[in-house]
């Protein structure tokens, strides 16, 4: 250690490197009479000891236990495209099939109920006289007045719809027949024609069902009256 400036530079280096002071630095610090060197040496020793004590206590700091439940977006995003494990996949499939089954059963039950009502109820045109409540508090939705003219208008509308559906089914079957029965495929036309006949026959229940439905719509209350009777 040649000079005071070198000594102070050495102290700075020791701070940054966290190394212990070598013997020549210690000797200069203890023996130098310069005020700056004495002050620097005293400060160095004071801070070394104080910080070491503080660090020792920091090491004993009680740290709470952190429970991180992570679904990190990056991880989650990548896993979103990853195929599910076999067990999860089977569970998902089971759930999907279960939902479909329930929906199917519900739909079937609804259709059966509507169908049985349409079949069992007598097709009697009945007009319920409006009650006092209906007169005082008309419903929010548009109520068609049940007059002879109104019923005739509804009947006409229903007839129009039925004829439109009827015509549509005819057009569909005609189109299919036109497409399938081509000259180049004459040999197969017999088979196609038979299939078309069965298709037309298949439309019949739907048509009749629709007609019944519109009939029911044209004559509201017939179900209630039928049940009441």
């Amino acid at each position, binding site marked *: 250690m040649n000079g005071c400036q070198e000594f102070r530079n050495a102290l*700075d280096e020791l*701070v*940054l490197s*966290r190394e212990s002071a070598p013997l020549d630095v210690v000797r200069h610090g203890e023996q130098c009479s310069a005020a700056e060197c004495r002050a620097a040496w*005293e*400060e160095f*020793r*004071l*801070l070394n*000891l*104080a*910080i070491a*004590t*503080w*660090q*020792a*206590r*920091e090491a*004993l*700091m*009680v*740290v*709470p*236990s*952190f*429970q*991180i439940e*992570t679904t*990190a*977006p*990056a*991880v989650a995003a*990548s*896993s979103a495209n990853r195929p599910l494990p076999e067990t999860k996949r089977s569970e998902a499939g089971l759930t999907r099939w279960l939902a479909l089954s329930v929906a199917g059963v519900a739909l079937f039950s609804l259709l059966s109920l509507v169908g049985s009502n349409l079949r069992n109820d007598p097709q009697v045109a009945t007009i319920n006289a409006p009650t006092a409540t209906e007169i005082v508090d008309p419903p929010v939705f548009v109520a068609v007045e049940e007059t002879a003219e109104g019923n005739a208008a509804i009947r006409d509308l229903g007839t129009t719809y039925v004829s439109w559906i009827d015509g549509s089914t005819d057009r569909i079957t005609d189109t299919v027949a036109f497409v399938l029965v081509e000259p180049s495929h004459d040999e197969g036309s017999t088979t196609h024609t038979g299939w078309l006949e069965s298709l037309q026959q298949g439309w019949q229940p739907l048509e009749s069902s629709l007609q019944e439905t519109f009939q029911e719509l044209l004559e509201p209350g017939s179900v209630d009256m039928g049940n009441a009777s």
Partner: protein
Amino acid sequence: MTNSETELVQRCLSGDTAAQAEFVSLFERRVFALCLRMLNHRQDAEDVAQETLLRAIRYLPGWDSSRRLAPWVLKIAANRCRTSLSRRNSIPVPCEETPDIEVAPVHVTDVADEVQRGLSGLRENYRECFILFYQQELSVAEVSEVMQIPEGTVKTWLFRARKEMAHYLRERGLAPDES
């Protein structure tokens, strides 16, 4: 960067919850200690440490595997602490001077308490620099990375923090022989 760090990160990224728990246990002490010293408030430190660990795991895909993991995690912690401090500074509520940390009685010393008080009195950036260097034992280069300042500035702030700390300790009547 070490192989074990890279391996741990890869396991975390693959969604391995055990690896994520390992990651948390690896860094929770350092993160919490940094937060506690920067914020000087245990509850805030717990909250910020929790948030830091969560964010660290979330942002692991962005970690540069050519660098050490610890400074990267501590950088997130320091950023969260700064955000928390800026929020706190906007609210005129005095913060707790003495953190309620539990220590073994044999290690409780006046000197450590005085250092802690001296630390609380330092400017925010000096304090952060001091904590990262002495408590987290990061190198100057790593402190520079965490604080996003040049290494020269780190050295300047560190020496100023030491000067102020020494001045405070002397004012409190401490001398090398007494400690």
